[in-house]
């Protein structure tokens, strides 16, 4: 997994509430589209006009937000389905950090599996960041994961294990495989305690 240490990038305002994963990536893109190509289809219902041309009003099509690496989002971003393709699509557009008052919980977990940092802050702080990102002369934001700050002063919280995984680019499957002895011991004890769990 890609490490995440610091990120300095254009931040785009995305104030819509309840952005669902169906909106982020349509289901027909989840059936066979290769992971590397999903970025081309992120937000496609809003990003493209019915004929296929870019919608100039969509925020990430506007020249100053093209290539944004950070999205400042409305409440409950990533609600809905478990499809990890939503994170792959966002990451495929080059977005590595999302800031919102709350996130869909499965989407939130999926971000950490893909080197994307979702930051939860209060609504009023997110509103302030949204205003900053919306200004004509907006400067890029800097997110420092080690220091847990945005633009040097705004502090955010993150679970310590998740922080370490992002900083070091760790793979959760590899980490758990190293615990095989503990898993085996759990199952051995559990078989005695709850035999009906395990087919005879």
């Amino acid at each position, binding site marked *: 997994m890609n490490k995440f240490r610091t990120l300095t990038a254009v931040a785009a305002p995305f104030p819509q509430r309840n952005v669902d994963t169906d909106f982020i990536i349509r*289901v027909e893109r989840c059936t066979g589209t290769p992971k590397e190509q999903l970025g081309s289809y992120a937000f496609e219902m809003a990003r493209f006009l019915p004929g296929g041309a870019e919608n100039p009003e969509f925020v990430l099509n506007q020249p100053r937000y093209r290539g944004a690496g950070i999205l400042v989002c409305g409440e409950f971003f990533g*609600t809905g389905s478990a499809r990890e393709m939503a994170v792959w699509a966002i990451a495929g557009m080059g977005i590595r950090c999302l800031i919102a008052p*709350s996130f*869909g919980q499965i989407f939130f977990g999926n971000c950490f*599996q893909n080197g994307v940092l979702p930051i939860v802050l209060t609504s009023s702080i997110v509103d302030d960041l949204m205003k900053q990102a919306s200004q004509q002369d907006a400067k890029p934001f800097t997110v420092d994961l080690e220091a847990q700050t945005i633009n040097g002063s705004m502090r955010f919280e993150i679970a310590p294990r998740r922080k370490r995984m992002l900083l070091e680019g760790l793979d959760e499957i590899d980490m758990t495989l190293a*615990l095989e002895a*503990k898993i085996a011991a759990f199952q051995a004890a559990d078989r005695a305690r709850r035999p*009906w769990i395990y087919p005879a």
Partner: protein
Amino acid sequence: MKTLFAKIWDQHVVEDWGDGVQLLHVDRHLMYELSGHRGQLELRKRGLGMRNPELTIGTMDHVVSTAPGARGGNAPWADRMIDTFRVESKAAGVKVYDIGQDGQGIVHVVGPELGFTLPGVTLLCGDSHTCTHGALGALAWGIGSSELTHVLATQTIVQHKPKTMRVQFNGEPARGVSAKDLILALIGKIGTAGGVGYAVEYAGDAIRDLDMEGRMTVCNLSIELGAKVGMIAPDRKTYDYLKGRRHAPVGARWDQALAHWQTLPSDADARFDREHTIDCATLAPQVTWGTSPEDVIGVDGIIPGNKPEALAYMGLMAGRPIAGTKVDRVFIGSCTNSRLPDLRAAAAIVRGRKAAKHVKAWVVPGSWRVKQDAEAEGLHQVFLDAGFEWREAGCSMCVGANGDLVEPLARCVSTSNRNFAGRQGPQARTHLASPAMAAAAAIAGEIADVRSFSI
């Protein structure tokens, strides 16, 4: 003084890293073609095998064709995906309930139906509506592709422990008010983000009075409340439902299991981090008007004006009654409402009546078994006589992964779980409601109050 949630959680801890982060054992894993085959291919790419294939079962639901008589995907890519899943599952030693077999169907319908879902287990599946299985007193939630691969490889999951919420549903619902209405009313009250960070337990007389299928409907919409986990304490109804099902324990194992299950309900003095109550006696049948499940009112209500964008998408005017809104499509199905009692409730409204001429109405049973049982009762004939289509089991028009879509700008009353913009097809307009309300809309040709129908 422990909650149902905490009891089950604590019994599954393999490793504890502190800060509420733990490695949990996964007792049960459900797979289906769409998310399952990706995990299988990723596992193969990593050169890993499945750790406990005997704790996983699979079925086909998302991309199968539900056209009457169909026995496969609806496109070459779907057939290829189904075949990949079949081949990989066989190679790994996973039992698959395949198309045309007893046991095939929507993964959240067949898990309980087969007795694979049990009280007290941790159960995961690569689908957000895995919370459905909490209806049997399981600790169940949906996972993404990476976590799915993690489960295949290690039979465990890394989790951050959520807080707990209890919702008491008190009072007796009026005739025509179903499980779907109870949970939609809760979502309307606390919002789709109201459950973020919580594992929710549903309690109260109105929950105890529901049949198991109704409890599944309630738990199914937990994710629409923002909660990954929703659960109901197991009781006599749960045990009676499970006994004799294909994967349920038998003999001495049943007795041991039952003794364990009876220890699971939350203790009387258990403390929850948050509590809500819903008065069911005053509820009207619910219907959504916007593009989020929280955009919901009673069918006798007036369309509110607080979300103009949602109303523009839905083609509705604020200040008008929701009842009387003309509909084009009706979809009775999905992991929310496609079980036998759901079809009975819809058929009771439809019996002896005809669908309005301009409405295209579908019934998609949740599983092969539901379809057989419904046909044995003659329910299919009730629907067919009224001009409905009676289709094969699958997810169908809830998510449209198989191409079952609502046309652009068409309005559909749907018993499914998500009314998101574009969910049932680009520009499709979805109104979520109960099976009886969907049936009433098909007959009336517009959104109608099911309480005005005699049965």
